[in-house]
């Protein structure tokens, strides 16, 4: 029953967050100075043309009516029609999302692959070479902007040593460099947390008990401590995954990948308002939903959360 209530509460918060974000987006686009229809139509447009765009944008009716319409459509994931391509916004998003999703997935995978082993080694062998390496890595990871790392990776592995293709998409080879650029900085965050969490765990009393029982250090570190230390790491990794979807916008531009980020960016360049609105809300939904799943998983791993 408590678990059910917990899920219900979290679900309510998920819906509320999405509601707030979409409301903010709705009003922001309407309080900006100037009529979007005028911007879209250009200076030479006739009144009839501008009116037609207003109808298309739905800005020909009072704001309250627009808001109700917007919310009604939102429930059905209907974000309207793109002004440029005349296709439904959701269709465009569906075409582009898989690439961005796989990029983020590969990015988080590579990030975990670096961060968790290094974080654990740093914590187990504190002030060792591993630990110093981990510290240097986490500082670099946080200082090097991902898009610059992307450019440097292109420079090194596509121009200087042509191992990876400079352009194109479709194969995993095309996603590898962008995923590294995306995962590198995120790994720094996960690494720091893994180390801190593991250090924390190793100083607890049950570790002393385990040692008193005569367990080997390996057993203590990797069977007892690691299991508990990873609980907070899971949460942060999940949130990092959400951030990667945002970061993908820039990385896709660096590597010329036709993902959601590029779609969104071109919508901005071309002032395709329905596509901008839809894109933001879509990413917000995905992001909030990821956080929701992470919370669920966390409560599954850590029963304390469910009971309290």
């Amino acid at each position, binding site marked *: 029953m408590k678990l059910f209530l917990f899920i219900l509460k979290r679900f309510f918060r998920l819906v509320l967050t999405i509601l707030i974000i979409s409301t903010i987006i709705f009003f922001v686009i309407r309080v900006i100075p100037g009529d979007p229809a005028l911007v879209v139509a250009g200076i030479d447009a006739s009144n009839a043309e501008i009116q037609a765009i207003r109808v298309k944008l739905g800005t020909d009716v009072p704001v309250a009516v627009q808001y109700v319409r917007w919310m009604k459509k939102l429930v059905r994931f209907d974000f309207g029609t793109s002004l440029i391509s005349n296709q439904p916004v959701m269709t465009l998003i569906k075409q582009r999302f898989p690439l961005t999703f796989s990029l983020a997935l590969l990015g988080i995978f590579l990030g975990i692959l670096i961060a968790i082993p290094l974080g654990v080694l740093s914590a187990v062998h504190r002030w060792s070479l591993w630990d110093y390496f981990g510290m240097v890595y986490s500082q670099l990871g946080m200082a090097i902007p991902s898009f*610059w790392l992307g450019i440097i990776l292109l420079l090194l592995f596509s121009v200087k040593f042509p191992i990876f293709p400079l352009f194109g998409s479709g194969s995993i080879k095309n996603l590898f460099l962008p995923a590294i650029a995306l995962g590198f900085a995120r790994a720094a965050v996960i690494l720091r947390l893994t180390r801190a969490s593991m250090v924390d765990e190793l100083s607890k009393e049950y570790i002393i008990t385990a040692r008193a029982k005569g367990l080997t250090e390996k057993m203590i570190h990797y069977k007892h401590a690691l299991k508990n230390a990873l609980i907070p790491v899971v949460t942060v990794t999940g949130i990092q995954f959400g951030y990667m979807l945002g970061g993908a916008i*820039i990385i896709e531009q660096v590597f010329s990948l036709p993902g959601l980020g590029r779609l969104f*960016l071109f919508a901005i360049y071309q002032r395709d308002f329905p596509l901008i609105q839809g894109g933001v809300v879509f990413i917000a939904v995905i992001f909030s939903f990821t*956080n929701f799943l992470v919370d669920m998983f966390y409560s599954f791993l850590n029963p304390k959360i469910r009971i309290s």
Partner: protein
Amino acid sequence: MNKGTIQNLFFKAAVLFVILLGVTALAAPLIAPYNPTAQDISIRFTAPGLHHLLGTDNFGRDLFSRIIFGTKAALIVGIVSTSIAVFLGMIIGLWAGLGSPLTDSVLMLLMDSLLSFPTILLAITVVSFFGYGLVQVMIAIGVIFSPVFARIVRAEALIIKTESFVEASRSLGTPVLKRIFIHIIPNLLAKVIVQGTITFALAIVIEASLSYLGLGTQPPTPSWGLMLKDAKDYLIQAPWMAVYPGLALAFTVFSFNIIGDVLSEKLNPRVLK
């Protein structure tokens, strides 16, 4: 050398670097060997050498001079955005912390919704609505980072509200504003400074990212992000165009992060393990 000495060394180097950045930004016209926007197609793509320390770009502009002038843009973004974030955060945080429980929950729900969203996406969205340019970017970054400060300020305000010395001051009839300035703000300063340092670094990265996408600083103003945008099309002819502005960016962010890290350890002994 133990960990403390190494850390101290880094901290000193970082502070020195930040001071150097400040001086560079202020004295850019004196230090830069060339006009950062002067074009000379005849010397485009000159490799780094004696005349052009870091080479020239696709318009024959001197990269070293452009990076020096870019320092100014970066620091202005850091200062203005962080100030906006701190200012907004203070107001919202105090309002939430000292206001009624309803105000508190509504404000914090709003702040949490903002916080639970990828920063870069939020920045791009705001800029896409309000138009491109440095001013819009700075306001956007300021607004986006205000929830972080609002949380800190609110938490502190809630604690301090119940402290006996504040209570005493209240019963003596000290006006609210005066209480805020005398008792609450000084107590907050340490945490706000630490968070401010980190925000400073993040603001510079976000401005560079947006300029890279063409949404931030507009040409021909020298900005590190914009320089990297130009570099992208000439990776083969002029790789130096991509290397040096990024290095400037990374070193700046690195220094601010180090300063933030050391300060937060010094102010919060629990982190040090």
